[in-house]
């Protein structure tokens, strides 16, 4: 994972001067910038797993920023996209947001505005990546449980006591206690509350 590194901003603009100066400006707040002159190169090469955001110029020769935005959405790219345009129309703005743009800014753009938007986008991306990460870990741990342990977990989530679980599954309370200790260990849960918060949704998703 690259989350340990500082977030990376992909900047796509065909104008070299605009690219350089915006890269410089974004760099002053400690964000790393990768500048792209050609939207096709960007689409072909940029690292999808990076944490960060994308800044797209709307008006570019060849592939317009809106077309790039559509392609990113189609590919399921999760980096937030900030659109930049010389003269934005309401229609253009509507299209951009419909296609999933996080922000729509007009050129020339004020530094405060751009940087705030970028930082907000990066925060959002980091959070969404973390959420995904946690989800994946939970799913992996849940996969390690045995069938009996899953049944026990389902009943715990429903709020049954050990005694009630034993009765429901025709097990002795002692055996239930063993399963309970095992699944707490496998799921790396420290408390009942944590267990329920993390895994209730999974139990419901996989319930027969």
């Amino acid at each position, binding site marked *: 994972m690259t989350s340990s590194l500082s977030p990376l901003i992909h900047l796509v603009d065909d*104008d070299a*001067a*605009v690219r*350089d*100066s*915006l890269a*410089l*400006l974004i*760099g*002053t*707040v400690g964000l790393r910038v990768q500048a792209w002159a050609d939207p096709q190169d960007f689409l072909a090469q940029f690292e999808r797993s990076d944490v960060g955001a994308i800044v797209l110029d709307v*008006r570019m020769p060849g592939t317009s920023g809106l077309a790039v935005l559509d392609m990113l959405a189609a590919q399921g790219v999760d980096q937030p996209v900030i659109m*930049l345009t*010389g*003269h934005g129309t309401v229609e253009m703005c509507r299209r951009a947001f419909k296609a999933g743009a996080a922000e729509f800014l007009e*050129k*020339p*753009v*004020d*530094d405060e505005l*751009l940087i705030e938007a970028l930082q907000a986008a990066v925060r959002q991306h980091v959070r969404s990546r973390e959420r995904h990460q946690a989800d994946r870990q939970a799913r992996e741990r849940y996969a390690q449980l045995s069938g009996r342990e899953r049944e026990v977990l389902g009943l715990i989530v429903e709020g049954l006591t050990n005694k009630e679980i034993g009765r429901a599954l025709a097990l002795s309370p002692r055996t239930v206690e063993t399963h309970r200790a095992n699944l707490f260990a496998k799921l790396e849960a420290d408390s009942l509350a944590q267990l329920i918060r993390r895994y209730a949704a999974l139990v419901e998703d996989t319930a027969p």
Partner: protein
Amino acid sequence: MTLSHWRRALAWLLAWALVAAVGAGWLVHARLLALEDAFVTDARIVHRLLSQRAVQHDAVMAMLPLLQPPAEGQGSSIAMPLPRLPAAYPQIAQVLRRLPGSAWPADLPAALGSALDAAEARSRHSGHAELAQADLPRGRAWLALAGPADQAADHALLLDLHATIPWDEWPMDAQTSPVRVRLQYKGQAFGVQAGRRLAHGWHYDFHKLLASQSQPFDVVLERDVGWSELPWGPMLAWAAASAAALAALRTLLRQRVAARRAEELLRLGQVARLNQLGELAAGMAHELNQPLTALLASTQAAQRLLDEEEPDLDTARHAMGQAVAQARRASAVVGRLRRVVERPDLSGQAQALALPAAVHDALHLLEPELRRRGIAVQVDAPADLPAVRAEPVALQQIIHNLVMNALQAMEQSEAGQRRLRLALGQQGSRVLLSVRDTGPGVAPEARARLFTPFYTTRPGGLGLGLSLSESLAQAMGGELSLAPPAAADGAGAEFHLLLPLAHQP
């Protein structure tokens, strides 16, 4: 010529053929009706005349027994000629009388004698004269009448049909008339009038028995109408007239279409020009936006760098260098735009023009707009106004812009208060065109900036019309200005366009 041209020409040709055919058909029909009418009238007259003669013969016969008393001397057994009658009636060729008990003269052919006897027998029975023998090809017919009583004499009368025809009352010219007239009896015929027989065309006929019991001849009239009798003259005239009318209609339609198309093209041209202007503005915005974006970002980056505890001076310097370069770039864009937008000197293309005609053209173009907005237009132009020196398209554009401005200015005025006045007149070595509206006028704060590019008081306006018009006027050696506000009526704006005379005094 394209296929559609041919198809359209063919449609017109077919339309003409249809119109011409219908007209010609009607003319033929009317002519045939008239001919038939005349024929029927003539036939009735002929029948009446011939019937009158036949009745006359009957009357003569009825009188014969009264004229000559039966007891008259010698040879009473021999029928006697009565010489006085043929003199009075040329159609009566011979009259025979037979006293009771005697025979017909011996020199009569035997066949005739027996025919007379037979007819006499019928006559005695019917009480009126009877036809004894008819030889229609030679125009002869014998009539017989039995005596009213046994002791009375019988009479026979030979008719010469040639003399029966009353030519003096005849309704037709016997020599030239195309009508054939004959009397018919049992397969025989007596030709009265030869007429004319045709193998083609139309045919009328008329059959009626003579109104006499003794002469049961059929009066037959026939008439052939040939192609040559059709009203060719009027038909040709009609075809020519309808061709001319359709040609005129076609020309009219074409002219109207052409006029509409021309108007459409002009309007399109204006739209295209506006679009170009819009494109230019959009292009300019983008061209300037890029360096301005870079300039702003660079300077702000430098600001941020310099604000830090330990400023990264090298990077800040680099950023400022970029800012300078981008400012130069923006300035170059402006310079390039100015060169693009700059008008070539129009005075070279100027020519002598009649200003009233140009005004008329511009108003004609805007006529639908004027009508739609209910604007009353008044044009005052002296008849002896000298020609001006101007470039036609530029002049057209200036007048168009001024009038358009006036129209839009009067948008808020009351419907009855919308008046546009264009006045022309000579002012020294120049001609003045003044365009005045009855709109709200120009606000004092707007007066100074009115001719500045991109200055507009209209939402959505480009603010280029007046500045463009002014530069066009100047390029032609003219002048465009806003007249000082009129103190008298207060309302409305007035623009003055001054153009040099074509021939300087």
